[in-house]
């Protein structure tokens, strides 16, 4: 898949501080998660992609085009949903979205049509003639999504889209993001500090820490790799562990019959059953261990991206 976003030695300074420090990497997922603790540079990266900040060094590319040199062209292809409340309070919802669509270049009539459609699409059809100032927080978030979608962008930048939403509204927002992603017509970049949101929607994740890339991983590949990582609970080990190692598996015991096993590609699970039978060992529990995004995030935070480690560190299954 062609890269959506490419970062080449990207360095951004705001005032005296370096906020993004020599970022390198290519992101090509359909839905890309941008993770990191507060102050890690997530919003700065989004603002740099929008051309609001000029890089001190290096460059960022979107769809193969350098951002600063193709601002107008790229902004026409981007839909941006900011983190903060950003709307015109005394304007009706549909008029606001129409206004934004017209600014993106849609003719009046088309903008009006798309504004109505966008409102129905996000589920605010009935409230579209109400003034934005009277909307609840959840409705405002959806209205912001509608304005980002109305002009039919190729890339959607969502900055903390579920901020302040109750569980039901949050689920609705995430479902919308998944729907948009699944159409295949739009690539999505979501910035969030909520791991669960990212895990539910994204197939690729970039984790920032102190302005550097702490991890860049493809969640799909990560999930596939997890298929070979087993957690077992057995009645007794009775030489079972050594036999499993003899098959060529990486294996570790954590006491009380708890084992972790990484199967090589040519080893099937039934061979473990056969060995268990040979050693009269009962397998009481067997789980495919799934390295959750939380694990990946914690690993990235612990490993960090210290000085000189600014290049993207692609996480793959790191054994036991």
């Amino acid at each position, binding site marked *: 898949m062609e890269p959506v976003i490419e970062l080449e030695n990207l360095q951004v300074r*705001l*005032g*005296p*501080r370096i906020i993004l420090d020599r970022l390198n990497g290519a992101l090509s997922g359909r839905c890309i998660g941008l993770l990191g603790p507060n102050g890690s540079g997530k919003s700065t990266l989004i*603002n740099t992609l*929008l051309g*609001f*900040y000029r890089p001190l060094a290096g460059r960022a590319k979107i769809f193969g085009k350098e951002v600063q040199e193709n*601002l*107008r*062209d790229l*902004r*026409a292809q*981007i839909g*941006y949903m*900011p983190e*903060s*409340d*950003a*709307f*015109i*309070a*005394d*304007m009706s919802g549909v008029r606001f979205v129409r*206004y*934004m669509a*017209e*600014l*993106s*270049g*849609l*003719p009046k009539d*088309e903008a009006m049509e*798309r504004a*109505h*459609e*966008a409102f*129905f*699409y996000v589920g605010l*059809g009935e409230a579209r003639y109400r003034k934005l100032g009277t909307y609840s927080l959840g409705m405002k978030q959806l209205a912001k999504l509608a*304005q980002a*979608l109305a*002009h*039919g*962008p*190729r890339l959607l930048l969502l900055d903390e889209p579920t901020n302040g939403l109750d569980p039901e509204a949050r689920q609705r927002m995430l479902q919308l993001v998944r*729907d*948009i992603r699944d*159409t295949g*017509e*739009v690539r999505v970049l979501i910035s969030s500090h909520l791991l669960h949101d990212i895990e539910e929607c994204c197939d690729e994740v970039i984790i920032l820490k102190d302005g550097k890339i702490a991890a860049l991983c493809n969640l799909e590949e990560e999930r596939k790799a997890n298929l070979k990582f087993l957690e077992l609970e057995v009645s007794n080990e009775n030489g079972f562990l050594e036999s499993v190692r003899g098959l060529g598996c990486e294996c570790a015991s954590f006491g009380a019959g708890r084992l972790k096993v990484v199967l090589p590609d040519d080893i099937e699970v039934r061979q473990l059953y056969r060995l268990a039978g040979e050693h009269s060992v009962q397998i009481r529990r067997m789980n495919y261990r799934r390295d959750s995004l939380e694990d990946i995030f914690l690993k990235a935070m612990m490993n960090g991206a210290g000085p000189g480690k600014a290049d993207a560190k692609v996480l793959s299954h790191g054994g036991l």
Partner: protein
Amino acid sequence: MAVYKRTYKAYSGPLTPGWSRFTVLTRYGLARLFDSRLFTSYTVFCFLPFLLGLVFIYFVHSTAAQMILGLKFGREPIIDNRWFFEFLRVESWLGVILTAWAAPGMISKDFANQSIQLYLSRPLSRAEYLLGKISVLATLLSFTTWIPALILFVVQAEMQGHGWGWENLWIAGAIILASFLWIGLMSLLSMGLTVWVKWRIAATALFFGVLFFMAAFGFAVNVILRTRWGWLLNVPQMVFLVWCNLFRVPLAWIQLHRDAVPLWSAWASLLAVCAFSLWLLNRRLKAREVERA
């Protein structure tokens, strides 16, 4: 993105030309202003001098009307450069109130709603955003300055006849130049002050402050320091000084003849105000603010 399907579909229709995007801001800006009946009423009121001017020109050229009203105008031409100069002066003061009413709300609301980032995340530059907002003021002020003045000029030329229009064509040029100077100055100053304070009421107060309190301060400087350079702080007076030159009106007409500053310094002070406003706009009008430690 058909409603009945409730699925997302990209837009593949026609797009408006890139150069025309700022006009969207102007159109919506004007529509929002005229949502207010009070503002609409005041704008209509601004046309009163124009209507009075039309009636006056008619009376000057209609002996029948003069007889009915018992008026008698002498042989001296009374509709000349001074008449148009005064007409623009009256309209410009009405325009000050119009600017103070319209300008601060246009940008301060965008700051208050944090919507600047939404505008600038679209194919719209900061200059185009500003152009769109200034065009709102330029449109309003045009309809109260050079457009009615030129209509009056044409009506006068038509009623006077005998080549009056051609002989006095320079007055039309003066009307346009003087109005453009006023519109540019008022627009930049009001916008610059608004982005600086970002609060509508404060911006309106500051706008009047710059126009009137600075003038008073300049007068105090003149008296205390026994100089004439204090006039440079009086923005309206500097504009009228430049206008006097454009309309070939003696400075005595605006009581500036005794201690007027040189013309070049008046131009310089007005250009400085414009440059300062542009500097403020460039510094403050940003999608994102960078906090400096």
